[in-house]
């Protein structure tokens, strides 16, 4: 009994600790400048204002950054999920030399700290003439999202009975047909979780974006917002909080809809992988 109460208390303490900064972010973005630094602080704003949002949208590059981030994350997600799905299918279904070691090698690359790879990757992208493009970020993010995606989808794929595919072949489907009609629908939860992981990763990535891209019309939200609102002399707290809220909104919406798939993804990666 006591243990349950303690456990509940602890759980709630953690929830509060995580939720409070988010709450403070929203509240701060709605306070007028004058109320921002008042002591003692007001918990709920006395006057609610959307002026920071308006300024952000009308006077800054925010929308360009936002658009860059959307393009970047969507393209990366599509590329990573497509390659990982086909790769996982190959590793699970076909027998060829080095199949298992390949799977482990892929995981091994994931153990390498990505910071180590920035410089060589940057030089390669410059060599390809891709420096300072959104596409260079797509490539960079693919290099570190793909191994994990492959690993995750592999365990989902392994859970699909081979008989299903055999049945489709006997029923007259081609291999591609069987893949499309039978494997893909079964793989959907795995694909959705993988897509979410990749999307979130690309949406929140900062370091590579900072190094690889430095012109205003190619910057994604993370570096764009930092660059514009945080300088050595000043932090535009209100705008920063408003930008943060707007950055989070797409993720929150996606999460709300696909939450159950995501937790399943954690399960698959953790238990079987």
């Amino acid at each position: 009994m006591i243990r349950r109460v303690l456990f509940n208390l602890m759980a709630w303490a953690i929830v509060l600790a995580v939720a409070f900064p988010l709450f403070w972010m929203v509240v701060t973005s709605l306070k007028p400048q004058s109320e921002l630094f008042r002591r003692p602080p007001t918990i709920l704003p006395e006057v609610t204002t959307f002026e920071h949002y308006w300024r952000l949208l009308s006077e800054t590059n925010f929308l360009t950054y936002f658009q860059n981030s959307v393009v970047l994350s969507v393209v990366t997600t599509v590329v990573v999920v497509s390659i990982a799905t086909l790769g996982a299918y190959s590793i699970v279904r076909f027998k060829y030399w080095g199949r298992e070691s390949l799977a482990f090698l892929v995981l091994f690359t994931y153990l390498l700290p990505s910071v180590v790879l920035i410089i060589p990757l940057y030089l390669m992208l410059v060599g390809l003439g891709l420096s300072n493009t959104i596409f260079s970020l797509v490539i960079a993010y693919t290099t570190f999202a793909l191994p994990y995606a492959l690993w995750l989808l592999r365990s989902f794929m392994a859970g699909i009975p081979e008989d299903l595919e055999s049945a489709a072949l006997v029923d007259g489907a081609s291999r591609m047909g069987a893949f499309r009609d039978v494997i893909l629908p079964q793989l959907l939860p795995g694909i959705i979780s993988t897509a979410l992981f990749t999307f979130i990763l690309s949406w929140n990535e900062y370091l590579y974006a900072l190094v690889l891209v430095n012109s205003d019309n190619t910057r994604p939200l993370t570096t764009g917002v930092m660059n514009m609102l945080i300088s050595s002399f000043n932090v535009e707290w209100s705008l920063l909080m408003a930008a943060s809220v707007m950055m989070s909104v797409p993720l929150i919406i996606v999460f709300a809809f696909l939450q159950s798939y995501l937790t399943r993804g954690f399960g698959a990666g953790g238990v079987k992988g």
Partner: protein
Amino acid sequence: MADVVFKNVHKKFGDFIAVEGLDLSIEEGEFVSLLGPSGCGKTTTLRMLAGLEFPSSGEISIGDRVVNDLPPGKRDIAMVFQSYALYPHMSVEKNIAYPLKKRGVPRSEQGPMIARVAEMLQLTPLLSRKPRQLSGGQQQRVALGRALVRDPKVFLLDEPLSNLDAKLRGIMRAELVELHQRLGRTMVYVTHDQLEAMTMSDRIAVMYDKKLQQFAPPQEVYREPANRFVAGFIGMPSMNLIDGDLSQEGDRWMFRSGSISVPVGPLVADARGGEACLGVRPENLLLGEGPTPAVVQLVERTGHENIVVVEIEGGLRMTGRVPASTDWKTGETIQMSIQSEAAHVFAAGPTGRRLNIASVAVRP
């Protein structure tokens, strides 16, 4: 006319041999069972026929056409999987419609075909359900429906009843036999259950240890087993197999093992004396009369008869069947004898061939 032919087919997975030197010729419209213990290569054989595995060497043909290089969809076969392999995201109706769709049957013609099969298998009220909302028996029917909806040349079934409970299995057995009679199509049926094979098949292909052991009608497999393995595998309770020694005395053959000494024969011309095995069906063990004393070890009452295990001098145990009216107790000593004219003799080894000439009179 032979409909399905395996010609010296081998299958290897890497270094592991799964099927060895298979020669099998199945007639059109025949119901053939591939029967054998688990791991003997039945499923591999069926999958090669389906085109899901490719033989390492040899030739497979269906209806005069060598199909070695044809993909499954081009072989004009339908298959029922042990796991049923129903498409989980499709309704029953979509499952049954899938093979039609993949073969380009116009949508307007699909409806009546699905309705006919659903009617036949009593699936009509379930058409809109998803597979996971069905019982095992119902799922089995859907799997059957998906195979029956077309009119393929050959039906392949891989242990389709093994996941059903005993009662349902009995019902489905009868239904499959009826279905086969109605359709008149060639059916190849994989099972490890001899009762299924015995009751349903025109011919049984008994497999063991990667090889075909015997291919014959059920009665023949029972009465004239080709070798020791078939003799021991077919029949419930199984045949008593007694290791001993075969010798020629004058113009007749004698089999000896411990206190047992019985005349056997006639044997094949090239039979040799030495190590051999005597095979006696439980019904050919005469219990309650005869010269040999035996101690009752176990009495199993099945209702209409009793299965009795006895032990004779030297510790040899044998099984016999007697009418239910006998009421021997465990530990009781009775007399027994072996009906030697109905006994078989096999050469040494797990698959030693039968040495006695076939069609010995078998008393009921």
